[in-house]
């Protein structure tokens, strides 16, 4: 892996983060002239939480956050605070900082995204590879079209179907039909100290439906890509040679077939990252899963400006980082790229 390759990738990462932060700073200001702090104050006044001296408070806020300064100064101030990891304070849950809120929610999102991608990627790639190889089981051929049909459907749409089937009671369901929870990540009102088995089971139960709706939609996508690559790989000379050398079929399948066909899948994963994360955000919101998605939704509902900004920024940086990691890992597992780079 050469310095130029790493440099280009890191440069791309910086460009993505900088451009994204710039776009989300300027676009809303061009599109409207709302003042989130003033609006928040008016809202509080309307509910009787704040009666006198509102103007003073607004002015203090504007001074504190530099909202009264010219746009380019605000921009510089904003960039430097982002670099410092300072994402301001929640307007609703003042004085909790946005960073604290995000740190509380991020592990749930990371867990859900990581787990779902891993399972979907493994399941999809394995079944896709099997399908392209001679002697694929018939049932798998029958299942693939089902998953292919599910693959264009947004995750959170599948979430509704899963809720309909597995989370609400209908007359057609027999007694033993499983009912899974649809709200939150653990049972409401239970306080756990530490991670015992009961708590793990509770968390797993609550994650089944959100994770399934992501996995169901992704498996078809990975299977289709893997199948295409594996068909090409199966026709390669080195596979024929391996067969002639009398290597064990599972070794040819794994070491000669899958290992080579898997590489373009990783490129697809890097490209699909942003879509996957957008999808997961919506799934979290549907299931009230305590991750970034619910945080974002609550912030939108209450027009908690800084929280919206912070969540969006962290998501963008998260996706850019994941893409960078995949880009840097790629040459390590593909010698051809290593040499070319």
């Amino acid at each position, binding site marked *: 892996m050469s310095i130029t390759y790493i440099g280009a990738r890191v440069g*791309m990462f910086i*460009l*993505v983060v900088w*451009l*994204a932060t710039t*776009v*989300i700073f300027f*676009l*809303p*200001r061009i*599109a*409207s002239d*709302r003042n989130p702090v003033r609006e928040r104050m008016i809202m509080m006044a309307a509910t009787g939480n704040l009666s006198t001296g509102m103007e003073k408070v607004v002015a203090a806020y504007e001074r504190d956050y530099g909202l009264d300064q010219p746009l380019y100064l605000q921009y510089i101030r904003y960039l430097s605070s982002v670099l410092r990891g300072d994402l301001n304070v929640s307007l609703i849950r003042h004085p909790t900082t946005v960073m604290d809120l995000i740190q509380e929610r991020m592990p749930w999102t990371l867990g859900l995204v990581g787990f779902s991608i891993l399972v979907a990627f493994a399941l999809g790639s394995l079944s896709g590879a099997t399908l392209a190889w001679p002697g694929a089981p018939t049932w798998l051929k029958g299942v693939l079209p089902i998953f292919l*049909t599910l*693959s*264009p*459907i*947004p995750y*959170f*749409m*599948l979430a*509704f*179907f899963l*809720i*309909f089937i597995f*989370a*609400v*009671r*209908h007359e057609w369901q027999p007694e033993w039909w499983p009912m899974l929870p*649809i*709200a939150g990540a653990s049972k409401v009102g239970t306080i756990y100290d530490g991670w015992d088995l009961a708590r793990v089971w509770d968390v797993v139960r609550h994650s089944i439906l959100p994770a399934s709706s992501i996995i169901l939609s992704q498996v078809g996508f990975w299977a289709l890509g893997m199948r*295409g690559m594996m*068909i090409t790989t199966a026709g390669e000379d080195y596979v024929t040679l391996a067969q002639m050398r009398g290597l064990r079929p599972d070794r040819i399948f794994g070491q000669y077939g899958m290992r080579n066909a898997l590489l373009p899948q990783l490129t697809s994963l890097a*490209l699909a*990252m*942003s*879509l996957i*994360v*957008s999808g997961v*955000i*919506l799934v979290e*919101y*549907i299931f009230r899963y305590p991750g970034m998605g619910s945080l*974002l*939704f609550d912030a*939108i*509902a209450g*027009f908690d400006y800084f929280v*919206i*900004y912070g969540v*969006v920024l962290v*998501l*963008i940086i998260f*996706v*850019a980082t994941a*893409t960078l990691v995949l880009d840097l890992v790629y040459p390590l597992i593909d010698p051809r790229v290593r040499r070319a780079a």
Partner: protein
Amino acid sequence: MQDQSAETGQSSAAIRASSEADEARSYSAWSQIWYYFLHERMLTAGVLMLVALLALWLIGGQLVDPKGAEPISGPQAAPPQAKYWLGTDFNGRQILPLMIHGAPLTLRIGLYAGIVGLGVGIILGFIAGYMRGTVDAIVRIISDVFITIPSLAVLVVVASTIKEGAGLSVNAMGLIVASLAWMWPTRVIRAQVLSMRESNYVEVARLNGMGDFEIIFRELMPNLLPFLAASFVGAMASGILAAVGLEALGLGPQHEPTLGMTIYWSIYYGALLSNWWWWYVPPTILVAWIFVTLYLIASGLDKWANPRLRQSL
């Protein structure tokens, strides 16, 4: 000239005799299209699903009173029954007219995204692929950057800032999501132009003294048509995906019953916990239907454009 046509007539007769599959290829564009329709099951299924969707809008719109989509036109949260086929929502809107009214709105947003996405994609893709060099590098980097940025995140910031009172109109919504639907078309078209401009027939055209514009419009464009069509459908799908996502978060048009907004209201009024399934299941099915339709059409067109894919499936 006459000799030539006689010759082609002869040769096509020979081909007809030799194999049935080759037959369609030697015929006119229309019979070619017809051929693919009969043999491309994905494309056919997709087009049929689209026709069904349009029929729901056109015929359903005639049969069902649009007033039913307004609040308190029916009882509150009534399950499906003879009078209200798909039941009613919490505010007494009837679900069936709501769906018939809402589906075309969602499709319209997709149409904007398709048009803008493809238009920008064509311009950038052709400029990059044809001029190469620095321009190409810039276009490639910019489209890669925007592919990496989760567009839903950016759209959430924009939409939540603009949202005031009535929220966005359907048209504004369409334009906003369309502004981030151009990356994949640009990428695909650029790659195609890049490889096509090296092909022999472009070389011949250039040697014959054709100008750049003439080459683009008379040589490259016609050959790219299936790709362009597939890109258009792809941009539509990504636009609808973004729009439905924004709407489900409550950032869509507040007074228009788009499918995503219906989903938002159903969550807002607790339809999930109250088991008012008839409220959220129909819009979910319709949205899923739209995505499967677009996916089938895009895949079918892709296979048409890419004969190698045809064999492998």
